[in-house]
């Protein structure tokens, strides 16, 4: 899983970042291509809605563009992108909750599943997505963000703590609670199936 992250943003050289920070739009497009997958996927899992995830992605990259000059080191840049992404996604989720527009957009996600694979594969993947989304919806945005960063994006506890600006022990306890909630739900589902 961590290979995803190694590919992500590791191909952004210091040179590209410097050019992008000086306003080079082509360099910034390379930054976008390298990091947009991570940003969009985290936004999608935390906000649960493809339209919201697109808005979050736009917001995140506009923030990166406006503040890029302040970042000199690649590691800081990665952590910074993780932090902006999670914070923007959580804020967007809360906002959409306030506006009562937080209906899960399953169709939106299913439509964006890559076209490769047989119909059976797609059906399995759609089923997986639906179950995953239903489980993630049980969690608070903070717990969801922790779990997504760990399970889908493969960040270490240290990286999650640095990204969210929380102690490692808080990361640990959030993951425990999130998994406990998922286990309890799985237990309920099993009882219902047996009935």
């Amino acid at each position: 899983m961590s290979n995803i992250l190694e590919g992500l943003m590791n191909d952004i050289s210091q040179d590209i970042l410097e050019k992008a920070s000086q306003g080079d739009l082509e360099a910034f497009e390379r930054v976008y291509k390298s990091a947009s997958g991570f940003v969009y996927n985290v936004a999608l899992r935390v906000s649960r809605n493809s339209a919201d995830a697109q808005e979050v992605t736009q917001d995140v990259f506009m923030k990166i563009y406006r503040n890029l000059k302040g970042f000199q080191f690649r590691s800081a840049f990665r952590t910074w992108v993780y932090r902006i992404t999670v914070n923007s996604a959580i804020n967007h989720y809360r906002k959409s909750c306030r506006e009562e527009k937080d209906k899960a957009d399953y169709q939106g996600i299913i439509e964006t599943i890559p076209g490769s694979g047989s119909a059976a594969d797609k059906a399995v993947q759609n089923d997986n997505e639906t179950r995953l989304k239903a489980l993630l919806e049980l969690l608070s945005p903070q717990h969801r963000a922790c779990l997504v960063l760990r399970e889908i994006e493969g960040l270490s506890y240290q990286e999650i703590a640095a990204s969210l600006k929380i102690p490692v022990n808080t990361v640990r306890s959030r993951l425990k609670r999130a998994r406990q909630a998922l286990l309890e739900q799985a237990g309920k589902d099993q009882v219902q199936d047996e009935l």
Partner: protein
Amino acid sequence: MNCKDIRELLKSDYLDNEAGLRQEQDVKEHLDRCPECRAVEKKLRSQRLLFENAGRFQPPEQVWRNIREAIVNERMKEEDPVRPTLIERLRGLIWSQRPVFAVVRVMAMMIFAVVLAGGILRRQQLINQEINSDIISAYSFSSDNGELARDMGTSIEEYFL
């Protein structure tokens, strides 16, 4: 370690490969002899499969086009900033959507209404006073020097009086 401790580790460090060698060994030994904790581990790992099989999506092309457009627009504004005139700034302040400006607007309107109403009432009072003084002087029989008023009516009335 008891089952509770082991399950705490299962839900965090052990599952995430963050446990130390000693902890990992303890958990493995416990799992070998505890079927309940093994069942919990199995459930956790099967749940993890959902995440491992989660699809990775790319944002639609439109997202980059929107970002690019926003950047170009921002740059144009930076290069050619249209500075608002004083009147435009004042207008912006007056019609600002911020609550504090809304309160100020309402208060200003109330003060204006009170001042306007006060002015109208005062004017009305002055007019009334003027009319009253006219009536009083018109119907008064005495003047300043104690003589009868000259403008009491027609000449016949004045003759008889």
